[in-house]
């Protein structure tokens, strides 16, 4: 994996398997797509996942609660954690989407660009450093973590509710990356 594969530019995603034709979808599939994402009915990724409508019907509200649910960890920090996880797993599509979300929320696209150019060890302010380090360790070696891994988060003032959210965000991308990376691939968007 090289840093060069990561980009903040928008990518498309192509499915390796046949997706559901939305015109042939069942009412249940349509309902689950509509609650997944506003654009899900034109997204190859969602039109693939809706093959198993029951699974997507649970996963989408979980994903939305993890990333956008009220209270707890600020949204931009959830995005930061997911970018760190996606970088480690090598999911360029996921990293691109969530780097742009972070940039929209913080108005700091330079931080994401530097993270892609220099890697996760790039200099970050202490709270962001602690978030990236925790997400990275949870991604690489969850069983080798100890209570000492909480100390840097607590040192920057993080509450246990925020740590719970951070854990869910990093864990959710263990899930998301594995779908995105193994059922299809990122492609450059068609030029207009």
């Amino acid at each position, binding site marked *: 994996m090289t840093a060069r594969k990561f980009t903040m530019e928008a990518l498309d995603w192509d499915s390796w398997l046949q997706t559901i034709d939305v015109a042939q979808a069942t009412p249940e599939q349509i309902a689950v797509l509509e609650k997944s994402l506003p654009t899900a009915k034109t997204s190859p990724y969602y039109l693939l*996942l809706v093959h198993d409508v029951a699974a997507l019907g649970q*996963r989408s509200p979980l994903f939305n609660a993890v990333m956008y649910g009220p209270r707890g960890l600020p949204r931009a920090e959830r995005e930061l954690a997911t970018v760190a996880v996606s970088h480690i797993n090598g999911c360029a599509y996921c990293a691109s989407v969530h780097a742009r979300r972070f940039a929209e929320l913080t108005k700091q696209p330079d931080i994401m660009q530097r993270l892609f150019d220099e890697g996760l060890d790039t200099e970050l302010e202490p709270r962001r450093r602690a978030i990236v380090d925790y997400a990275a360790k949870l991604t690489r070696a969850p069983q080798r973590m100890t209570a000492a891994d*909480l100390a840097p988060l607590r040192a920057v003032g993080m509450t246990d509710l925020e740590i719970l959210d951070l854990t869910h965000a990093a864990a959710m991308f263990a899930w998301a990356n594995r779908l995105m990376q193994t059922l299809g691939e990122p492609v450059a968007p068609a030029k207009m």
Partner: protein
Amino acid sequence: MRADEMEPSMTDVIDAVAGIAEGSYLAALRAQKPDLVRYSQGSHDVLLAPDDPGGLSLAERTAVALRIAVLDEHAALAAHYRERLRAVGGDALLEAAERGPDPATPARIAAILDHAQRLTTAPGSATPAHLAALQAVGLAPRDVVSLSQLIAFVSYQVRLLAGLRLLAEAPQP
């Protein structure tokens, strides 16, 4: 019946595997985020015990989950899935799930478990040929999606459990 209208399970798997007792600090912490609890359990239920399992049997699903818990070295989660595998009559798959397939393992479950190992340990190495290998042993596109969701879900579960373990060991002072 839609998946989100199902009765909640009697036992929350995360609480059971993590040893989170009713009324404990972690139970109260998790209760502050009810959607995370509800849909984590819901995902477990629709992937491990779906109303309509399609072409991926309950025993195969449970063997996959056990394989990942073993690979990720989570003893309590492995014990959970081992018990479930026996309960769904999957004893014949137990050894392959515990140790990984060997040349004597039937081709279908070997391909499924190999895919589980690849996605767990090296997700970036997957190619269309790996999906073709699953289809060659009889999995329909829907079954491949279900298998992928299941594998990725257990990776999520392992990491959620790890974070909860730390918070249980050292709650906020």
